[in-house]
């Protein structure tokens, strides 16, 4: 394993040190990343979190117009309730706090425990579960939360910034999730610092279809193919579940080890696919946003926009990972 780290056990702490040093707009305390400016009275607070290794998600989305705090766990390990409780209490401006939780057993358990144990703060939660690679069924853990988390954090964050009450912020957050779907494809496995070797072996001529963001193997393997065909596999899966029409917000997201030039190639194919379906890419994002350590590959996330969501997407945001309008 070749990584730019000091030791496997120090990865998260060291990275947070770097984040704090790089971004005066952030404050890091006890493994929670806050806006340095602190909570704003009357504004709904937004707290998210999850295992580390998905940077810039979540800590890179703390700031004006998005999160108030992020709770990074160890690599691919949900944060612990103490972090979430501390964050929830710290960011409450009197209007309550929304927990944005990706649907994984560990994340939901720890956020639930934290919500139960947080005193004096009104807490609402939204579960993000956008990954169509996973069958949604009453008898399973349900779909994973992946790329749509960014959309939920951005749009709910914009609404909270505008002073909307907790119930409305929570409702819109859930609506964004409901209108969003993702599908991911890996060219290589990632290597967790703790394991020190790739999580799975993938021959040079194969890809994993339907991967998550934790180096989990996908639903099946397939021969490696041109970007056009891989984009089609991903978009077919999305379209099958969420018929594409109207104005779409589309993210082509790198898994951490894929360079931007390749993501633009994928985006060109995705955009052509959307056009061929008679829909329109009204807003887009191309880059490494919801990653899986050093994995090579991509995911596509699509959200069906309406006027309100478009306005919320366009609203100013000022975070290390996403910034416009200020």
């Amino acid at each position: 394993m070749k990584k730019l780290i000091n030791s496997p056990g120090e990865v998260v702490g060291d990275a947070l040190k770097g984040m704090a040093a790089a971004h005066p707009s952030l404050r890091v305390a006890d493994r929670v990343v806050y806006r340095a400016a602190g909570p704003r009275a009357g504004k709904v607070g937004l707290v998210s979190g999850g295992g580390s290794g998905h940077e810039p998600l979540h800590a890179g989305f703390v700031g004006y117009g998005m999160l108030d705090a992020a709770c990074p766990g160890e690599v691919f390990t949900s944060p612990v309730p103490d972090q979430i409780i501390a964050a929830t209490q710290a960011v409450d401006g009197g209007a309550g706090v929304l927990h944005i939780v990706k649907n994984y057993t560990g994340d939901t358990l720890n956020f639930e425990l934290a919500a139960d144990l947080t005193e004096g703060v009104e807490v609402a939660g939204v579960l993000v579960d956008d990954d169509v690679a996973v069958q949604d069924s009453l008898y399973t853990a349900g779909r994973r939360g992946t790329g749509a988390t960014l959309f939920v954090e951005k749009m709910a964050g914009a609404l909270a910034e505008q002073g909307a009450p907790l119930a409305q912020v929570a409702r819109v957050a859930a609506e964004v999730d409901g209108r969003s779907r993702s599908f991911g494809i890996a060219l290589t496995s990632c290597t967790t610092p703790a394991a020190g070797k790739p999580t799975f072996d993938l021959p040079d001529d194969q890809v994993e279809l339907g991967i998550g963001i934790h180096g989990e193997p996908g639903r099946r393997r397939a021969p490696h193919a041109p970007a056009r065909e891989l984009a089609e596999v991903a978009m077919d899966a999305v379209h099958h579940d969420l018929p594409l029409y109207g104005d779409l917000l589309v993210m082509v997201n790198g898994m951490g080890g894929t360079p931007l030039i390749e993501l633009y190639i994928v985006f060109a194919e995705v955009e052509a696919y959307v056009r061929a379906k008679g829909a329109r890419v009204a807003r887009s994002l191309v880059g490494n946003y919801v990653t899986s350590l050093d994995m090579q590959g991509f995911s596509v996330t699509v959200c069906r926009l309406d006027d309100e969501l478009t306005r919320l997407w366009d609203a100013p945001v000022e975070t290390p990972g996403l910034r416009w309008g200020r």
Partner: protein
Amino acid sequence: MDAAFCAAWLEAAALAVAADRERLTDLDAAIGDADHGANLDRGFSEVRQALAAGGPGQPLAVAGVTLIRKVGGASGPLYGSLLRAMGKALGESFTLAGFAAAFQAGVDEVARLGKAVEGDKTMLDALGPAARAVAGAVRDGAEPRAAFERAAEAAREGALATVPLVARKGRASYLGERSAGHEDPGAASSALIVGALVTADGEA
């Protein structure tokens, strides 16, 4: 039986987890995210520190709270709740029957939190049979030693029986049919932890 036994159990479990850390992570790599060994080893190290600090409280309750507060992931709150529930049910000293009831209470708590049932290919597939084995031993009037051996055997069998299953809970469920053919890492660690009861009893 008393609190000292509980402490010895936790110590033995910590050693067993540390020794098998890599195997647990490898099992998790196959159908999960390659961190189960690291998670539990980190958690039980914290448990040892917390117990060494020598504060008040039933050791299992202390360990449970420590796992919940320090580990994260799915296994942290699940194992933490198992132990915390047991610690709550047990006092300074207790009988094997008391232990059996506490164990079952802990397992129920895991099932409640995780919304899982046996057969979902989780730690419950080892913990459930183990709790029933202790209860059965109590009914048969067995000594603790024999009860724990039966529990360890049941947990090991339960863990191995997860191999052919298709996971319905936890990360392995995302693999669908591909999750079959692999032992569930949490069931494997449960077998280790239950097995540590035998070690602890041998030392006591």
